[in-house]
């Protein structure tokens, strides 16, 4: 979409005399500020980053495919991306590793209007399916379609470039993938359209982490990341106990996101946050790699250790 301005959140907590200056970290979000990144905003607003002596700068990108490349090129320390995308990056030699998870369930789904022709995935035969992110989502969609016994070539895939809700409402497409179960469904409902979701993990796709944090391979053991994970963990725990206060904080920082719709999306997102963000589920990453290799999106499944590390939360250290 149109270029967005850089978003800067610098914490300037008043430091008692003698405290160290905070370490900086630049994080590129995966999209515009939205409830998926709630822990980050709360960690900033409620001071969890500051408590761990971190000054974190959040940047919202103009399109979702650039954040990992920007981080790999060194212009940012951390990027948010998707577990499936991680394998593609590795296959092309982009030196990034996952060091923490933000949302450890899939969010993606295929949705179709309830009054429309798609009642089961099998109904997608000879129909149009919209998608937003080329590459991985095409594979997910094809796997889901295949699980319903339809040949992927019988479904016409159209890139709707994130205009998912409009594409569905104007009936330009019969169904779309790239609709998040905590987001677009509620948006459609707010516009008076009811939709039925089909979840990838129920239709031939192994479960995966929707949103992960990646960093350059060289930075994987950096002590700042341990503190980052600690702050994230505390922030998530706080959020689960104070959901409404959390939304009030978010709405105060981003007034454009203060509507009732966003509040509904916020509440639907909280249960999906990873409460132990630094933990790595080896089996999950191995299985998904094998899945993508079997679908020929990547030549071979990588070693999990090459693409992901576990990060222990480490306490920060600003003098209280």
């Amino acid at each position, binding site marked *: 979409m149109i270029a967005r301005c850089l978003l800067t959140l610098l914490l300037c907590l008043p430091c008692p005399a003698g405290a160290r200056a905070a370490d900086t970290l630049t994080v590129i979000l995966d999209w515009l500020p939205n409830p998926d990144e709630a822990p980050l905003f709360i960690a900033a607003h409620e001071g969890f980053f500051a408590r761990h002596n971190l000054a974190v700068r959040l940047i919202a990108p103009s399109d979702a*495919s650039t954040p990992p490349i920007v981080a790999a090129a060194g212009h940012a320390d951390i990027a948010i991306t998707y577990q499936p995308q991680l394998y593609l990056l590795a296959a*092309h030699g982009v030196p990034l590793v996952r060091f923490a998870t933000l949302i450890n369930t899939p969010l993606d789904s295929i949705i179709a209007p309830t009054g429309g022709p798609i009642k089961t995935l099998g109904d997608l035969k000879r129909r149009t399916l919209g998608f937003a992110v080329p*590459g991985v989502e095409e594979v997910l969609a094809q796997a889901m379609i295949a699980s319903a016994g339809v040949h992927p070539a019988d479904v016409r895939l159209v*890139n*709707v*470039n994130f205009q998912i809700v*409009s594409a569905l409402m104007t009936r330009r497409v019969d169904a779309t993938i790239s609709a998040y179960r905590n987001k677009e469904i509620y948006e459609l409902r707010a516009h008076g359209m009811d939709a039925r979701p089909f979840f990838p993990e129920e239709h031939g796709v192994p479960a995966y982490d929707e949103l992960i944090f990646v960093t350059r391979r060289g930075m994987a053991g950096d002590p700042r990341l341990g503190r980052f994970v600690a702050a994230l963990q505390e922030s998530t725990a706080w959020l689960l106990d104070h959901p409404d206060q959390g939304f009030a904080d978010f709405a105060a920082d981003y007034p454009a996101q203060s509507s009732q719709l966003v509040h509904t999306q916020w509440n639907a997102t909280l249960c999906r946050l990873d409460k132990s963000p630094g933990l790595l589920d080896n089996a999950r990453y191995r299985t998904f790699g094998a899945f993508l290799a079997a679908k020929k999106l990547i030549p071979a499944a990588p070693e999990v250790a090459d693409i992901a590390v576990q990060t222990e939360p480490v306490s920060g250290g600003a003098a209280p």
Partner: protein
Amino acid sequence: MKRHIAPFLRPLITLAGLVGIWWLLQWLSGIPSYLLPDPPSVAAALWHQRDLLAWSTMTTLTETVLGLLIGTVLGSICALGMVFSPLMQRWLMPLLLLSQAIPVFALAPLLVLWFGFGMASKVVMAVLIIFFPVTAAFSDGLRRTEIGWLDLARTMNASPASMLRYVRLPAALPAFGSGLRVATAIAPIGAVVGEWVGASAGLGYVMLNANARIETDVMFAALLVLAAMAITLWVLVDRVLRRVLFWAPDTSAIA
């Protein structure tokens, strides 16, 4: 020695030089291939994806040419209308300026919503982008007919319709030609931007896809093909214009 180099060799030599510099740059700087691929991998991508690229080129070319044709016809009609009807001039001029002032990028999502994800929205984008240059250039040419020619025609008792057809129109052709050249250069932009916003085929779509899949070599390959297509189209239009405007010589060589 320079005189003996055949005209088509010169661009080839320039191209080879550019590729050489690119390769050297990539090799010396060690930029990773996912940021800047080297010429051999792009050449490989060009070969392996030749079917996809050929098909995509047809799509983008069709969108561009259709946009050019429709935009030129519409623009010419508007120019004629504005020159001969001050009322039309007053009403159309603001619309004309508006079409130029709003960046096509901003309109693209709307157009895709209104005209769908097929070719129609891309053609509309191309039309919008070239409409102003064509209309402005042509109406300018129509307005600036040499007074002497018009006076002569009047003394020969030409009707206003004759004056338009036999004096103003031919006299305005060079200006129209410049407008058309500009339009040909920018029409591909409209088509590609339209593809970026929502499509299922075309070179812009291939580039978008390749970018998301981190297939930078394919992206560069599509970019090169797009450039070649745009240049070829422009040269074609230029040659046709030169033949039609055989009587308007290029005086740049004269001091």
